[in-house]
């Protein structure tokens, strides 16, 4: 707080006794903190541009951090103390200069190779033409952040690899499958008349197995395409996607006498329209499929804003889902009911989850057996700062 000559600057001189106390507290604090601290006076050239600065005060942590001794540098200019500084770090002086001129505190991160650590330098102006810098060791925080970034990239690449694999495998599997299916057909034609009941039954099971295999391979292809053929997210009107999905299902909606009520205030969101239509089609289709016997399906589609996301809900009055299975149903090829009761290979919800994840969202279900189900998922609003 004192200036170079040891005098107390007029703006602080409110009474000697109080000043001493403050100075002691300040000195104690300055030595106690782990962060390196240095207080400087800025030097300006003829145009008023910051070009150098004088060390006025440093703490012990600073001495350790830089290897410079306070006694050696106090009162001297940085260009004297560290002669190569303008070349080594050309932006440093202007960074501090900006803070000194504007009075607005600023931070920056840099890597200090001698100590192999990451530091955050926080500069602020406690007094006109002066600036203080606090250096904090942020290596841990920085490494954690980098680890997350690395993991995220690895995960993304692994997902893409898996998708490519699923895509290629599905393609390659189609040819042998074609052989199985075609020759079973031919066999049935060829032997048809001369087969006994058992023979006919055996062939039928084989043919059915092949048909289900074909459906699963198609589903795997659909699933892997979500990532591979996904398009960048763009603003779109959710109600248009709902209308399209309902159009595809219109015959079944009419057939079951189902009522689908869509809230009038569905928002605009960020999305891939084709995929959102697919998502809604799957959810509405399920709501229609898993109806309570004798009860016409009633489906409600609505949206509500929760913070940074839109939460979309597709609610039905069908058979509901046992909470034990809430997690499982979103996995690939998971089915809760026998094939004779409800058809389908069990990939619809896995595809829904993949689509929602691609949209930076989450999907979940709330339900009780016999009480219908609410499928809910989140989408990004137009003003989102996230998104792909």
């Amino acid at each position, binding site marked *: 707080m004192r200036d170079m000559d040891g005098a107390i600057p007029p703006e602080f001189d409110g009474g000697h006794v109080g000043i001493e106390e403050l100075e002691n507290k300040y000195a104690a604090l300055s030595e106690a903190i782990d962060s390196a601290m240095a207080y400087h006076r800025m030097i300006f050239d003829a145009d008023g541009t910051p070009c150098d600065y004088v060390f006025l005060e440093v703490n012990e942590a600073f001495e350790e951090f830089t290897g410079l001794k306070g006694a050696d540098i106090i009162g001297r200019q940085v260009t004297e103390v560290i002669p190569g500084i303008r070349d080594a770090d050309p932006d440093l002086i202007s960074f501090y200069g900006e803070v000194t001129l504007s009075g607005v505190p600023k931070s920056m991160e840099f890597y200090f190779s001698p100590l192999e650590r990451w530091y955050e330098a926080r500069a602020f102006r406690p007094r006109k033409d002066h600036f203080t810098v606090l250096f904090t060791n942020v290596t841990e925080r920085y490494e954690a952040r980098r680890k997350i970034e690395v993991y995220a990239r690895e995960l993304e690449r692994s997902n893409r690899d898996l998708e490519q694999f699923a895509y290629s495998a599905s393609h390659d599997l189609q040819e042998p*499958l*074609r*052989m199985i*299916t*075609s*020759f079973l*057909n*031919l066999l049935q034609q060829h032997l048809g008349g001369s087969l006994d009941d058992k023979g006919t039954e055996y062939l039928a099971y084989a043919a059915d197995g092949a048909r289900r295999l*074909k459906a699963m391979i198609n589903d795997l292809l659909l699933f892997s395409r979500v990532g591979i053929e996904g398009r960048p997210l763009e603003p779109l009107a959710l109600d248009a996607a709902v209308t399209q999905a309902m159009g595809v299902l219109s015959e079944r909606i009419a057939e079951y006498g189902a009522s689908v009520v869509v809230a009038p205030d569905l928002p605009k969101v960020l999305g891939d329209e084709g995929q959102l239509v697919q998502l809604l089609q799957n959810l509405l289709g399920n709501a229609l499929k898993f109806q309570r016997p004798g009860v016409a399906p009633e489906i409600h589609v609505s949206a509500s804003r929760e913070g940074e996301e839109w939460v979309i809900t597709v609610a039905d009055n069908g058979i509901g889902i046992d909470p034990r299975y809430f997690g499982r149903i979103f996995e690939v090829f998971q089915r809760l009911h026998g094939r004779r009761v409800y058809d389908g290979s069990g990939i619809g919800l896995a595809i829904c989850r993949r689509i929602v994840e691609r949209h930076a969202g989450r999907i979940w279900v709330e339900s009780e057996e016999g009480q219908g189900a609410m499928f809910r998922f989140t989408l990004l609003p137009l003003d989102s700062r996230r998104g792909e």
Partner: protein
Amino acid sequence: MSVTCVPIEILLVEDNPGDVILTREALRSGKISNNLQVVEDGEQAMAYLRREGPYADAPRPDVILLDLNLPRKDGREVLGEVKSDHDLKHIPVVVLTTSQSEADVMETYGLHANCYLVKPVEYGPFLEVIRSFESFWLSVVRLPPNNHK
């Protein structure tokens, strides 16, 4: 005498033995009398068409059924060679393949294939494709004059 009394000569270029059987079966059970010759790769196909080596007495085909994915010389190369050969380019080449990729369709027509057919997975639809091929290419369409020599 009507030309249709003479069986139509078809050359099938196909490496998958299962597909050979399926195609042969489908063509045999059709209405139009035909002789099916089969070669299993692109090299043999060109040798057959040029009547080289063991194929010296081979009849000239009226139409070629060509798979794209063949070992050694593949179907695209065969197509290119046939359609640039003065003696062979008039023979209709019907591509019959599993690939549904737009790139393949484009490239194939670009090489002057006469048409592109995709093999369905199930036998019923496959049979229908072959029937369509027959009723169009072997019945409705007027093929180039050919004394098969």
